[in-house]
């Protein structure tokens, strides 16, 4: 896979390296990062990952030697445009609420005959998870600029919303943290990182609507499952299983709260 990291590191050094230190250095640092984001918006490094994903989408794979071009992401077989803006959703064929990644696993299994376990068990950005990230980058690029529009009318969606909200406030582990510890207030930061208030429409739209994203600090493209996994790591809990119900429930809660906001995926992050 092409690694755009080298472009980024140079650009970041140029933007941040010249910052003066002083009383307002923290503000300048934030400004610097924001400016840098804007500068990159025209040439998002995720484009390379998305291009690979598109190719992968169209390439026959697996025991059934089929492509994913007939995959139904909720808007009908093969429709990619706008699909991720309306996920998670309830899917009749599986009888489950699914996010983009679990839905893609279903398509890989039914269309291509690939075992979802290979995705679940792979390391982040390695093997089948690397392929998943590329597919995700492709799909979410096709929803850039759309409105977040998650339909919560189905009883299973309603239930997942409730479960997700409970998960959001669930304090546990050696540091007693919940999602709300870090994302339950307006205008807070951890060190220099601004924390969106995910309880509000505005905050959730900014947070949910800009993921999956390219992370400048490590030159990696991260899916939403990856984002949530790392937040649970910071929360000091046990590890959430890839695609598990808690990740879906939280995604429903965040997406439904964000409804009406703008999708700017793939995002560009610190």
């Amino acid at each position, binding site marked *: 896979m092409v690694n755009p990291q080298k472009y980024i590191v140079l650009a970041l050094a140029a933007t941040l390296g010249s910052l003066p230190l002083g009383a307002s250095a923290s503000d300048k640092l934030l400004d610097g990062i924001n400016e840098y984001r804007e500068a990159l918006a025209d040439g998002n490094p995720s484009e390379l990952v998305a291009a690979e994903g598109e190719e992968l989408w169209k390439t026959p794979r697996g025991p059934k030697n089929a492509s994913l071009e007939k995959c139904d992401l909720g808007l009908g077989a093969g429709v990619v445009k706008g699909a991720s803006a309306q996920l998670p959703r309830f899917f009749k064929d599986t009888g489950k609420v699914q996010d983009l990644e679990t839905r893609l696993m279903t398509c890989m299994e039914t269309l291509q005959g690939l075992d979802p376990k290979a995705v679940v068990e792979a390391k982040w950005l390695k093997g089948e998870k690397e392929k998943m990230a590329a597919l995700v980058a492709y799909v979410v690029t096709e929803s850039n600029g759309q409105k977040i529009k998650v339909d919560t009318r189905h009883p299973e969606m309603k239930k997942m919303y409730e479960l997700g909200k*409970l998960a959001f406030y669930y304090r546990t582990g050696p540091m007693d943290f919940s999602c709300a510890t870090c994302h339950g207030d307006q205008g807070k930061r951890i060190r220099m990182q601004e924390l969106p208030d995910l309880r509000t429409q505005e905050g959730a739209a900014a947070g949910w609507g800009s993921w999956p994203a390219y992370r400048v600090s490590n030159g990696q493209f991260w899916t939403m499952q990856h984002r949530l996994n790392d937040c649970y790591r910071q929360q000091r809990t046990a590890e959430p299983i890839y695609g598990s119900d808690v990740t879906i429930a939280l995604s429903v809660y965040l997406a439904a709260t964000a409804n009406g906001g703008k999708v700017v995926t793939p995002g560009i992050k610190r």
Partner: protein
Amino acid sequence: MKKISTLAVLLLALPAAWAGSEDTYAEFKAMMDRSFKTNGIAAKHRMYQLDFQKSCSQEKQPPKAEMARIEAEQLKTIRYPADGKYFGDWKQGEKIATSGRGLTWTDKTPHDNGGGCYNCHQMSHHEVSYGTIGPSLLEYGKVRGSTDEIIKYTWGKIYNAKAFNACSNMPRNGDAEILTEQQMKHLMAFLFDPASPVNKK
């Protein structure tokens, strides 16, 4: 021990003021139970809540009486230094305040943790990369003075923040064995020593 003692109440009792149905809550606990796995030092049992964690897992804080009950209970956990000495070396304290590492599934040992204080607090005159979840502690010693009372309170707050605010966002550094007594002494010096950059420009 304490961490696992709440296992039994897992599927029972709702948090006090929760509006949803008992069924949904049972389903929630089952979902949490099957969604997490042990990874390294981050064991599965971390998903099972202590009683006070559960009371504090709602949009709103629990009722006043419940808060007071939790605070009284948490106050009892605080161990003051046996040798009566509250202060270590502020330079080491600064390092502990700066380090946010520890206790994740990518950490090898549950010991040698940082305090992560800068994640949430402004502390010194020269560190500009600080979080704002907690109040600024800049010039803490200078502003608050160093009476026995304030020293004892500060020790207690670092040891178990929940003793003073039941649902505080601040971890229980001593009670949850995040930091050692010695590390907390270094942090005390960092906050109170007139020569530390917390108090000296």
